[in-house]
């Protein structure tokens, strides 16, 4: 029972921790709630603030191979989740699940990635109506 309660608390906290994703730039461009899974080959992994980027080539159903650029949170937020500067190298075959942008361009934010060795790196929870951030009301 105790473990169950803790897991509920942990899940709630993960939601909170997920909120800062895209905090710097906003999520207006994202097709929030939509998930796309792509298999591709890493071309570059950029470990930088305020967001890290994973770039990879994938045949995404458009009939051509496109170079995708998808983002995570900052290194400070990703490190506790097991991500690092060396998580990817060019040539890695990865399976990437993302929330894409609305306009069809090959960009989005990462939800999770499955590495060549089968390890799953989780970046964020999918956006749901319940997890969308709500502006706090100022205290008078």
């Amino acid at each position, binding site marked *: 029972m105790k473990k169950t309660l803790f897991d509920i608390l942990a899940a709630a906290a993960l939601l909170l921790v997920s909120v800062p994703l895209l905090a710097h730039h*906003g999520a207006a461009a994202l097709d929030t709630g939509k998930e796309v899974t792509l298999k591709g080959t890493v071309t570059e992994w950029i470990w930088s603030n305020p967001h890290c980027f994973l770039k990879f080539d994938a045949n995404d159903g458009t009939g051509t191979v496109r170079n995708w650029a998808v983002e995570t949170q900052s*290194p400070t937020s990703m490190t*506790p989740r097991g991500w690092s500067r060396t998580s990817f190298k060019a040539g890695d075959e990865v399976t990437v699940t993302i929330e894409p942008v609305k306009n069809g361009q090959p*960009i989005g934010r990462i939800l999770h990635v499955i590495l060549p060795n089968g390890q799953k790196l989780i970046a964020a929870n999918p956006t749901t109506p319940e997890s969308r951030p709500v502006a706090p*009301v100022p205290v008078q």
Partner: protein
Amino acid sequence: MRLHFIVFIIASATLLVPGRAHAQMKSWNNAGLSEPPKGPSGPAPRRDLSGIWDAGPGGIQPTGYNVAALFTPRGGEMAKANKPGNGPRIADVSEDNDPLSTLGDPAGFPRILLYELRPFQIVQTAKQVLMLYMFEKRWRVIWTDGRALPKDPDPRWYGYSVGRWEDDYTLVVQSFGLDDRTWLDNAGNPHSTSMRVEERYHRVDRETLALTVTLEDPLIYTKPWTPLNKLPIRLMPNDTDLMEMVPSASEALAYRKEIASQAKTK
């Protein structure tokens, strides 16, 4: 009742989960995890806030504040010119003109408290309280030697600050002379150079601070408001080596090139 339960669950999780995450802490490149120091808790030291502190997820306000009802006419005009990437006036990514995320400008004060209060260290000297922030790797000097705030200072990104001990466990800081190119928060709320900011750091116990921030800016807001009200901040182990979190101009440029320029919807 159900809402109260949900709030309780989330608040509890905020306090509990970082302890579990502590299992992943490393000696170097620690992101900032709210594990309290080991050993007996003991009483809080008097007139001493020294230590490394972390507000956890509560220190990050991604959507900013909804304060449009408080704008003066001038405040409303200034707010229109700001095109934020978040909050109630969220703009298309192609119009976003957030000086922090699109240009690499300093967050400035008090945005470093109202948006991205990542872990920070407090150092005290005989005449100063120094705030060393992980975000931006910035610092502030709060003078506690009895000097008054300047009356007509040249504005600074982080202003001018003086502090006094209201009692043995409460440091009250007044700040003035703040550069109006900075936003207050992620929602693009503006301020003028006439704004005054009060921070109250109350040492609840050895391991906990409560931070209250009140803003007074009659040119922009019709009355003072309190964006942070007793925000809990926890003491971290004193051997924590915080990571860098520097939002540089070149990385802001890379973001615009790789993501923002392609993501526009207009």
